[in-house]
């Protein structure tokens, strides 16, 4: 006992305490709910047993039932499409913009700041605005496409099962592009200028410089952005609530929205938890990529 107390004063125990405290906090704040969620996916839960931990154990029944439902497959495929298309769109447009502003013309940094407006807007507001933009009869997007002659008749973005998921993807790309752009801009500014000067002297053209210097130097940034993008898009909920509510007939439903719908609209908390567990696995994979791609940055 005395030794332990002494160790606190001599510093070593103090250090351990400093580590343990946040660890305990982290475990209480995010570890416990996570464990609770996993436990819930193996139990039979209804709204009145929601408050108690001891509930009938049903094994893998929730998982089996879930995969027996006809909407599960399309919703999983929708999620995959939503995530990959959103990340691709956000990244490509974000990278394009970052390179554009990197040219550093007058007012570039000011304009770049303006792009952040989309990032600070609450998701539900963005959802409501895109809901109007994508409206079939009077939406601005249809008006624009019609006037420029791209389409003949109106496209019912929100209500046509062929477009409904894309409606949310378009809104999500708009929402996430500026974040990608800012992170990529930081990555770009971290590349030493003399590399380019040397390459230029050696006669490398712009395209060669991009592929031999810019891209390799940005590898860890890109890895981090893709991983973060995966996490953010798997979290995206507000846009679905604001634009399509997962409809029509689940054509724009994704796992995260479905989990909410099952838990809080159909009060099937066990199934909601089961979907969350499946999603946790994917997010964990993304986290591994993220940690691996960022660990080189901490060189002390």
């Amino acid at each position: 006992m005395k030794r332990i107390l002494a160790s606190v004063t001599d510093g070593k125990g103090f250090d351990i305490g400093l580590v343990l405290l946040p660890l305990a906090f982290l475990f209480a704040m995010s570890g416990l709910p996570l464990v609770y969620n996993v436990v819930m996916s193996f139990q039979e839960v209804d709204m009145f047993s929601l408050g108690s931990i001891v509930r009938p154990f049903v094994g893998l029944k929730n998982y089996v039932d879930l995969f027996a439902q006809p909407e599960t497959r399309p919703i999983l495929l929708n999620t995959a499409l939503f995530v990959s298309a959103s990340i691709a769109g956000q990244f490509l447009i974000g990278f394009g913009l970052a390179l554009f502003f990197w040219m550093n013309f007058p007012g570039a940094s000011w304009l770049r700041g303006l792009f952040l407006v989309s990032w600070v807007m609450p998701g539900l507001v963005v959802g409501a605005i895109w809901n109007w933009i994508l409206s079939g009869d009077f939406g601005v997007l249809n008006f624009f496409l019609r006037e420029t002659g791209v389409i003949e008749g109106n496209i019912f973005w929100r209500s046509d099962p062929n477009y409904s998921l894309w409606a949310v993807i378009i809104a999500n790309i708009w929402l996430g592009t500026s974040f990608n752009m800012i992170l990529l801009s930081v990555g770009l500014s971290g590349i030493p200028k003399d590399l380019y000067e040397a390459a230029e002297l050696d006669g490398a053209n712009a395209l060669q410089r991009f592929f031999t210097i810019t891209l390799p130097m940005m590898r860890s940034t890109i890895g981090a952005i893709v991983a973060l993008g995966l996490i953010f898009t798997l979290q995206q909920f507000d846009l679905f609530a604001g634009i399509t509510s997962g409809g029509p007939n689940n054509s724009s439903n994704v796992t995260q929205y479905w989990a909410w719908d099952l838990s809080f609209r159909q009060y099937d908390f066990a199934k909601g938890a089961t979907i969350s567990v499946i999603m946790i696995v994917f997010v964990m994979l993304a986290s591994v990529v993220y940690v691996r791609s960022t660990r080189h940055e901490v060189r002390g």
Partner: protein
Amino acid sequence: MGIRRFAILGTVALGTSLAAFAANAEDVTISVWSLDRDIQPAPNLIKDFNKLNTGIKVEYRQIQFDDVVSEAMRAYSTGQAPDIIAVDNPEHALFSSRGAFLDLTDMIAKSSVVKAENYFPGPLASVTWEGKYYGIPKATNTIALYYNKDMFKAKGLDPNKPPQTWDELVEAARKLTDPAANVYGLAFSAKANEEGTFQFLPWAQMAGGGYDNINTEGAVKALDTWKTIIDEKLASPDSLTRGQWDSTGTFNSGNAAMAISGPWELDRMIQEAKFDWGVALLPVPDIGAERSSAMGDFNWAIFSSTDHPEEAFKVLEYFVSQDDRMFKDFGQLPARSDVAIPPTGQPLKDAALKVFLEQLKYAKPRGPHPEWPKISKAIQDAIQAALTGQMSSKEALDQAAEKIKAVLG
């Protein structure tokens, strides 16, 4: 000066609050939760009740529509439930069936204010579970057909003869639809939430279907009729993702000639609609067919965990005794057939009210069933699967029937 004045004020404030505390020390406190805002019944009735000094002090808390059930569940399961709550009528059975709400049958039998026979059968059924009353209907509403009389005249239709049957409705919608002028024949909601079920179920019920036999021939015909309306673009395809409030908005702005919605639209319509309009009963499959309608709005209930059931019931009795003010002061329809609603002085609104009161006679509750949200979801999916052409009406409703059968057990 300033400090002294503060000190005096402080003493006075302390004194009065102590006095108030002393006066109320014997009072029983009853807590009420509802989603009513300051211009709606609950907070106002509570204010009036507290002025009566009955020895019961009522505290009010406003909750948001989306939070009512989850908040109530959490409160109940942790023993913090209020004494009285207002819940949406299809969710009432959820609580009654699990013993979370107090059985009021005996109290109602003894009460001189609350009489079961005064209520419309629909709202009353929604508070009933296994033959017992677990609540009191707070207000009620339903849906009917709004139509633009000016457009009827312009297209050669008789503005005093709104469509009576489904075929007439579709026929009228065909005549009224005018893509060049951005006018759809009809506006309604087939959204993938409770609103879609609320709008479709009456159609199925009129044709002999119901939530427990959703795939009958009549219900299939009802869904086919909806499909015709969507396929021929007599209603906006966005009806599938638009709620009732937004859909009726297109009627108010002259972009739809008819709209199916409820009395909650009346005040807005009087302000916004710059044309002559009327309200008709929901069209039926054939002349003489059974009428039906959806029934909306909230019920009062007492949580079974309350320490003061008698006092809580007295508070509800007071609310019920004020039902004749519901429409005049708060624009809500009392769920009772014995309360006369005085004219408002606005001819369009008064005429509409008559139709809604008539329609209310045919209003049926959704359920009651403790797993209603799952049943509702199955119906929503079927509507949308058929309307988007992914399945035939028959297939979609068969699938819904199967899902519902699993829920009903």
